[in-house]
């Protein structure tokens, strides 16, 4: 365990020194070294710009993630449990899964205007099919023995959902959450770039026009850090807690 941890840190250290070496060697504005990036990061934090734009993006991310997970899970459970409904919607699911994200974004902005709602809707529509597919897989694999037991002992709908169905779906929720956060993050920046005047996507666009690579990397660093912290502080503990019954 300890070895694994130290190996992980070692790999990061190797990466940073390689980067540092290259930056020194090239001496190019297009590849600032890690120290330079850290310095820009610090300045951007002090001026309050980075926290503001990061906060705006995170807020959008949380809202659209919550909506997409809720709707996606509900649809996924229904499709997984009901063959006819599934047969009816199956093709549509594949179609929505394959519509390019850019298309939904543009259409949303065209139809709803360059508004916050349009941005959120675009992200949600892109995310829902993924959640549906994952959760549907889980709902299909529900243990029949346990469902029969619940029926025989008259658990009723709510109790069956809480004690029999959801615990079985939990690993699928966590899976959908992990892949979902990564996916939404990538989509949301494009949404911001296309039609919002704040958020990290908007900022990155500005830096791109100025060829300010250091700032771009500083923003990337900030976001990666936030995602890692979420993994450590929220997802991992949640996962461990929900799996503690396993041998």
């Amino acid at each position: 365990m300890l070895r694994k941890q130290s190996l992980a840190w070692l790999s990061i250290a190797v990466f940073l020194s390689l980067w540092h070496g290259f930056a020194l060697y090239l001496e190019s504005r297009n590849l600032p070294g890690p120290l330079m990036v850290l310095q820009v990061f610090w300045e951007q934090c002090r001026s309050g710009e980075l926290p503001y734009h990061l906060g705006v993006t995170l807020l959008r991310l949380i809202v659209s993630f919550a909506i997409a997970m809720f709707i996606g899970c509900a649809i996924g459970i229904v499709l997984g449990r009901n063959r006819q409904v599934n047969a009816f919607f199956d093709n549509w699911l594949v179609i929505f899964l394959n519509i390019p994200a850019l298309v939904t974004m543009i259409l949303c902005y065209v139809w709803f205007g360059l508004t916050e709602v349009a941005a959120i809707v675009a992200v949600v529509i892109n995310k829902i099919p993924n959640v549906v597919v994952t959760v549907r897989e889980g709902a299909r694999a529900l243990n029949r023995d346990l469902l029969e037991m619940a029926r025989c002992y008259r658990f009723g709908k709510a109790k069956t959902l809480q004690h029999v169905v959801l615990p079985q779906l939990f690993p699928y929720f966590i899976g959908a959450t992990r892949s979902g956060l990564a996916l939404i993050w990538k989509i949301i920046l494009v949404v911001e770039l296309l039609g919002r005047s704040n958020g990290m996507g908007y900022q990155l666009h500005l830096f791109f026009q100025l060829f300010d690579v250091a700032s771009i990397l500083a923003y990337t660093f900030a976001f990666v850090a936030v995602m890692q912290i979420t993994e450590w502080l929220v997802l991992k503990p949640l996962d461990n807690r929900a799996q503690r019954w396993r041998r």
Partner: protein
Amino acid sequence: MIRIKVKSKLYPATEDALPRRVINDFRLALKDNEFVCLVGPSGCGKTTLLNLVAGLDDDFDGEIRFDEREENHKIGYVFQNPRLLPWRTVRENIELALNEPAPSGAIDNLLEVMQLADFQHVYPERLSLGMSRRVAIIRAFAINPDLLLMDEPFVSLDSATAQQVRDLLIGLWQQRPHTVLFVTHDLREAIALADRIVFLTSAPMQTLNEVVVPFSRNERQNQQLIEQFRHDLLQTDGKPVT
């Protein structure tokens, strides 16, 4: 009174199997508070029949009629496998089956008798199979069922424990009479427990014959009596004695 009438139960064809008729023209009437044992070869359709009676499977030709307490009869079912929720502790598993709050001591008592008191906060995957079975049995007892279905509940218990659980079952049943339908392969067990034993043919399942066990509950303590009765049953090749 529970009237079981199954004209036929088919398992539908699958890609690699033809449809199978598992039960053919089976009738059985359970009197109120009667203890009936089903004895039959493996694969003859006993579990299938219990599932029909429990209402878990309504895809059959026939009917299961409950008189009187029809509206709200509680069924306790000890399945052939334990079917505990792995993500709930032993105690939670039992409590979840109760749909009304039970007297607080009742579950403790059952846990105590089943030697599981120390394990009530353990998750089922950390129990042995025999222990899991005992939890499943407690769950079925705890709801105070009007009809108790038991599908070979004592396999994988050692004979001493099995005897203890049998005594507990009879004790509870005498305290609060209810109808019991009990599947077993063990003829001694059937004689020790049942008011009536129903012998079944192999699939498609039909009644081979029925034997009323003529002993009082006290007489059944006598191993020799049971042994003799069993001997007679085997001699007459399952034909009615008396």
